[in-house]
């Protein structure tokens, strides 16, 4: 078949990568973008004087051909297919060379689908103590906070390579962590008695290098004071919140500007609410309020309050103080506001889910509507019991999360996913070893589950959707 040479070779590019020849089109390479190595290479500014050449342009690239084949395939199809035997780390290194790492990331981590999660990997840590909290980064990385006296937070990028760990100044124990963005980590630490005054508190760090960015200080009556921070929240704009416990009358929630680190407010704990040593803070976009939940093991009773910082008011609050004695043994141990902002989901130490209606006054709504505990007993049956028995004293209280219209609850060594308006359990995520799950976190299209033993965390991802 005859085709004029001008059309047959126009835009065609011959690449010799580490001795293997690839032929493709300039358009395929340019599609990678001007700010990638391949895009720049075929850009006109680097090819002056070769326009008239009828032969296809030829380039030599001194890199590994097998990885290049995968990346060229990615550019051609948008899919990432890694052949068995090709180490992911090598592929990532090569992608970084070509400036294609972001593409690989988005091809690698498909859209988060709670119904199709697969265990991607288990990462073993090297810290002496077990992890106490895990937080997902917006880009798919995560950080693991280790309790005890080390004050260390292990940071992983989205390729699950460990970065420099973050040490809280003077190794104060870290209570909570939050990502402001993929490269900024916020930590809340405990003040230890007898130390000098800048012990504990809240600071932000570079997640890339572990350097301190800002120290978030609290002043009462214009006097800077040291404090213990127990929980953190970020409203996605520029306000950072932390539950702060200082001297006797210095309990409450502090607000800072995340860009400057300046304190912009302090919500003092009113009578009947517990704000100063909360387990969880959650910003509710729909109502512009902050949920403050203080839970049973830390205090004798559980409290949930919604704060409006614009007029410094408690717009809603609930506590189980004075619950009839027969129910006394059911304690809410974690709370999360559902994404529609209409209710708060609670879980007790028997893994029962309960709901509070935020649209009604807590006093008039008749308290928590506990759901039957049967769901977990039947679904994960004896296995949980045996596990618990095996764990002995090492029991972990259940944790909750709301994401993508689903509720997630960790119970024992598994995470249950509840869907729909009635919160029916639709899937269970369980991994083989590591013992009970002590914390989990969803973000960056991944779910991270931290196990209470073995110093290991599991990473759950959504595989790419089927082609047809």
């Amino acid at each position: 078949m005859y085709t004029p040479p001008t059309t047959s070779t126009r835009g065609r590019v011959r690449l010799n990568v580490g001795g293997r020849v690839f032929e493709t089109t300039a358009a395929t390479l340019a599609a990678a973008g001007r700010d990638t190595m391949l895009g720049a290479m075929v850009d006109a500014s680097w090819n002056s004087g070769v326009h008239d050449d009828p032969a296809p342009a030829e380039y030599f690239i001194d890199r590994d051909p097998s990885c290049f084949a995968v990346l060229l395939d990615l550019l051609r199809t948008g899919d990432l297919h890694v052949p068995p035997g090709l180490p992911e780390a090598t592929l990532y290194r090569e992608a970084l060379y070509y400036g294609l790492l972001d593409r690989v990331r988005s091809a690698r981590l498909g859209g988060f689908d709670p119904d199709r999660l697969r265990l991607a990997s288990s990462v073993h840590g090297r810290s002496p103590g077990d992890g106490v909290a895990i937080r997902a980064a917006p880009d798919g990385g995560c950080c693991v906070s280790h309790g005890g006296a080390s004050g260390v937070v292990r940071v992983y990028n989205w390729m699950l390579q460990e970065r420099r760990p973050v040490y809280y100044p003077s190794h104060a124990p870290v209570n909570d962590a939050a990502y402001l963005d993929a490269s900024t980590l916020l930590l809340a630490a405990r003040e230890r008695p007898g130390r000098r005054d800048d012990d504990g508190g809240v600071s932000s760090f570079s997640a890339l290098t572990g350097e301190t960015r800002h120290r978030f200080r609290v002043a009462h009556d214009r006097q800077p004071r040291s404090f213990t921070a127990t929980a953190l929240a970020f409203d996605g704009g520029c306000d950072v919140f932390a539950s702060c416990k200082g001297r006797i009358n210095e309990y409450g929630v502090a607000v800072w500007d995340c860009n400057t680190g300046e304190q912009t407010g302090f919500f003092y704990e009113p009578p009947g609410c517990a704000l100063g040593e909360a387990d969880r803070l959650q910003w509710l976009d729909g109502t512009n309020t902050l949920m403050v939940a203080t839970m049973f093991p830390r205090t004798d009773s559980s409290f949930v309050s919604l704060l409006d910082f614009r007029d410094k008011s408690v717009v809603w609050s609930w506590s189980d103080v004075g619950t009839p004695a027969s129910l006394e043994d059911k304690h809410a141990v974690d709370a999360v506001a559902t994404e529609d902002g209409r209710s708060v989901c609670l879980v007790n130490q028997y893994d029962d889910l309960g709901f509070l209606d935020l649209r009604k006054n807590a006093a008039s709504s008749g308290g928590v509507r506990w759901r039957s505990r049967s769901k977990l007993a039947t679904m994960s049956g004896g296995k949980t019991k045996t596990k618990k028995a095996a764990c002995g004293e090492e029991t972990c209280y259940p944790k909750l999360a709301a994401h993508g219209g689903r509720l997630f609850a960790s119970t024992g060594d598994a995470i249950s996913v509840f869907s729909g308006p009635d919160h029916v359990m639709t899937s269970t995520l369980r991994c083989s070893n590591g013992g009970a799950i002590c914390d989990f976190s969803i973000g960056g299209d991944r779910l991270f589950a931290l196990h209470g033993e073995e110093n290991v965390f599991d990473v759950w991802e959504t595989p790419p959707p089927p082609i047809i």
Partner: protein
Amino acid sequence: MSGGGPTRKRNFKIEAFKHRVELDPKYAERTWKVLEHAIHEIYNHNASGLSFEELYRSAYNMVLHKYGEKLYDGLQNTMTSRLKEISKSIETAQGGLFLEELNARWMDHNKALQMIRDILMYMDRTYVPTAHRTPVHELGLNLWRDHIIHSPMIHSRLLDTLLDLIDRERMGEVINRGLMRSITKMLMDLGPAVYQDDFEKPFLEVSASFYSGESQEFIECCDCGNYLKKAERRLNEEMERVSHYLDAGSEAKITSVVEKEMIANHMHRLVHMENSGLVNMLVDDKYEDLGRMYALFRRVPDGLSTIRDVMTSYLRETGKQLVTDPERLKDPVEFVQRLLNEKDKHDKIISVAFGNDKTFQNALNSSFEFFINLNNRSPEFISLYVDDKLRKGLKGATEEDVEVILDKVMMLFRYLQEKDVFEKYYKQHLAKRLLSGKTVSDDAERSMIVKLKTECGYQFTSKLEGMFTDMKTSQDTMQDFYAKKSEELGDGPTLDVHILTTGSWPTQPSPPCNLPTEILTVCEKFRSYYLGTHNGRRLTWQTNMGTADIKATFGKGQKHELNVSTYQMCVLMLFNNADGLTYKDIERDTEIPASDLKRCLQSLACVKGKNVLRKEPMSKDISEDDTFYFNDKFTSKLVKVKIGTVVAQKESEPEKQETRQRVEEDRKPQIEAAIVRIMKSRRVLDHNSIVAEVTKQLQARFLPNPVVIKKRIESLIEREFLERDKVDRKLYRYLA
């Protein structure tokens, strides 16, 4: 590299570690030399000999082997030295070539920067964020800013050149706008702060002084209209300039400079400019100039209020002259027509030139309200105007035209504070129209009533509507009367009675005159018929309001039908039995009140062409010693002769006083009713609040005088509706 064994086992961690083995420091130096050479070649437009892949790999290797800092610093130094050279070549560019050279070099630098960034992309991605350095592209821009734009030899020259070009363009020269656009875009690319500090601020300052000077020059030699044209043109030019070669953010700033210098600073002088200012524009209906003034002045603070204030004071002044000029008061119809014309004129100005601005409409309304009420005869005149229109003025006019005229009148009516006075007059005039059958169109009459009703409510027009009802009933009654009593009446004079409900009509109790016996008989028959059909009513003859058609035969047997008033009829009937009668005789026989009699005799004897009586001595006025004779020699071309009474259309001074008095009397019960209503709901109130509330309640009808309100309060206290508080004498209490 060594240690191949473990690597092959795919123990990745060990391989990665081995990669970071320190290389020969000379390797780094050598690699950097290659890259440095490449950077120079790129600046020299010599890049075609370079291999991108090779350079990229070299930079990658340097970063990989921890020479990122060396690479970055080297780049910074190399670029700095290149830019210093470039700066020299720009400095040496002569005159007009300066900007060209700067722009060409800027283009080169941008292109080079892009290629350098391509080579150093790996460094930009890995070394720069972890080491908190400035990304390559931004670094290139910052160095250009520091070494070119802020170089002492270029900085002020660039600014002066730009400002000079703009100045020349303002003076009418054509400049290279494309070049200007490139340069200002460069400044924006270097950061909004660079554009603002190094160009925009001085530009605005220079513009301010330019326009300050120019406006001074213009205002000395131009009239207001021309000045505004020039200002408008300048404003448009500046906006156009921004759209062509400045940053869009400058538009608001430069226009505010022009507005301030050319308009705000000269606002008052412009408005008051002799022979061409706002007042002259208003007088001459200069819609275009007025529209321009409005559009320009609205851009500056207090601009519109300045126009509005001057317009208001002009309107009040001319309006005041209009309503107080004694010449104008002679003809009420003309007077109102002038008001309407004035209103139309300014309505048009506001709609055409001032964009129907609400605040201007309000100013117009308040001005009219102000001056119309300066003349307390305005209510009467407006009513007379309507009277005139409804009597004859509307003949041939379509229904829509009638509506338009009535709507306009209603507009004036709305301005009246003493709406009750208007009502009084309107009632009188309507009564006359109805009784004399002069009204042209019943529909127009009713439409006017409906308008008054929507404006002032049912109460205001109930009596007027009553008048219409009376007219209708009278017609029915008369038909019935003649149907039943026709044989009885025989051949006597035909009677047409209007039965007027007392209270609805503006009747003054006047003693009836002596009617001729023929008439009297018929009247008595009607009375007995009417009282026979209606129980408990009383009829009183209003002889001062009727008319009569009588047949008269003159000297040569000429027969005429005379249309006269009832009084005139009574007088004329006397001459059936006598040829000459003295004034005294007539007065005695008819018992017509003196003023009315004089008026009716005047119209019978002194009007040319209608003088059916002859008077001795001949004179214009009637005196009590005159004698009257039947005028045998009366001739007229017409068979029907209408002898109108000499009626003052306008009220005479004493009548006016009387009407005023009656209005005042009518107001008293209304004020009292308002006071009682208010006190009934408030129980206790101080004097000033009562006055305020009463005024508020009654202002739809009239503006009560506080002194009168005080008197009414005192009267109510006397009659024990209210009492003064025992402690605080300013407080009144309601006594239920």
